[in-house]
């Protein structure tokens, strides 16, 4: 049975309430595809039945599973590689020059999903710096408990390592672990993963030199976008760098940022005195 408009609206409302992420109309197929495995897991024949069950007897576990299934995306390693090129070409040299030799650089991957983004950053820095493990700390946060656990484990399926990870980096930084691939221990030590809901008050972290907040704002409505950017700014160093997704900008959302073009990508820096 396919999803009725009422069921879809219920899922939309649930996801908006729990994560502040707005599912646009027309995303019924996404709801079907993402929730079917949960329905199966619970021994239910389809998504319509799943919605009916959880609506009539709400429980935190099922609710969370539904929200997590709809708020996480398959990620590839160097998807839209320009913000990573910018890190090594421009941002890193400037930060190394500005900071003391014993100061640790702090980088935040703010919607780290299953870990591809923080480990991409870790690989690049490990290749660029002789002492990356002691010089850099990467904080990875995600809304999803399951994704945080996966990031900590640093294990990726064959299909995941096929998604845009250059083969030379795969052989340099990963080992086989059964049918999966495991990130090397020194990269895992550089990455600290924890749960964090960007739409709620943030825990004490940072201050960060670089923040990757990519493909997150697009899901939120304008007031939530504004409060997220404000909270992120509060956790950044005054001369820090913020990277957003290619389709995202602070322009027209929050005017306390300065846009800087780096090669084919853009970064945002806190405006002085704003």
């Amino acid at each position, binding site marked *: 049975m396919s999803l009725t408009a009422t069921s879809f609206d219920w899922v939309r409302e649930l996801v908006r309430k729990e994560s502040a992420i707005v599912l646009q109309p027309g995303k019924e197929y996404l709801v079907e595809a993402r929730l079917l495995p949960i329905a199966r897991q619970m021994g239910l024949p389809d998504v319509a039945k799943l919605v009916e069950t959880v609506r009539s007897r709400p429980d935190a576990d099922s609710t969370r599973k539904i929200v997590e299934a709809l708020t996480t995306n398959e990620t590839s390693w160097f998807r839209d590689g320009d913000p990573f090129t910018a890190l090594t070409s421009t941002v890193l040299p400037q930060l190394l020059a500005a900071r003391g030799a014993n100061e640790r650089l702090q980088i935040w991957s703010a919607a780290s999903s299953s870990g591809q983004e923080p480990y991409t950053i870790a690989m690049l820095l490990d290749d660029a710096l002789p002492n990356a493990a002691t010089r850099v700390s990467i904080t990875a946060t995600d809304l999803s408990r399951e994704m945080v656990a996966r990031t900590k484990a640093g294990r990726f399926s064959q299909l995941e390592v096929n998604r845009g990870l250059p083969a030379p980096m795969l052989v340099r930084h990963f080992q086989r672990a*059964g*049918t999966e691939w495991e990130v090397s221990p020194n990269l895992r030590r550089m990455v600290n993963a924890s749960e964090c809901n960007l739409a709620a008050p943030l825990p004490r972290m940072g201050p960060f030199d670089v923040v990757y907040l990519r493909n997150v704002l697009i899901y939120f409505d304008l007031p939530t976008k504004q409060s997220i950017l404000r909270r992120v700014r509060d956790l950044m160093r005054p001369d820090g760098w913020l990277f957003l997704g290619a389709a995202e900008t602070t322009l027209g959302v929050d005017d306390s940022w300065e846009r800087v073009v780096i090669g084919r990508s853009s970064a945002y820096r806190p405006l002085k005195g704003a």
Partner: protein
Amino acid sequence: MTAQDTGERRRTSDARPVITDLMDEGTILAVAEEAWVSLVGEEEVLVPLAGELPADVVSSWVDVVGPWTGSVVLTTGQATAEALSRALLREAAPEVLEPEDVEDAFGEIANVVGGSVKAALPGPSGLSLPQVGHAPLVRNPVDVCRVDVLWRGEPLTISVQGALPPLPASH
């Protein structure tokens, strides 16, 4: 496992690993699911349930030669093998499938599943070119790890089976 061994009453599994020492059904299923999702189609699920294979079955397999030596064998009904080949070829599928088309596509699935199984085994190991026909015989009933699945409701088995007979019991 201990490094010390008196050598007395050695079990055969101490001398040569059998497949169940090296992987379980869950691993084989995971490998097959990945192959199906990417080769056959994103919505194509394998349901881990046994079904009754029809009389006219066909197998495709690759041999793995290394610390563990054996075959990764896919077996299903002729009609299902054809449906799989069509799914694999999608719009590139010819109107009438020739037997060679089915051999080729069904063999390629064995190659892909076999490659992933091999990667999860201790290496280095070699992988043969795929073969299609009557499945190789099971030489040692203990050296088999097999999953039964349904694809689009039709039964299919994936068997990872050793090529060597059991070692004679030592006295």
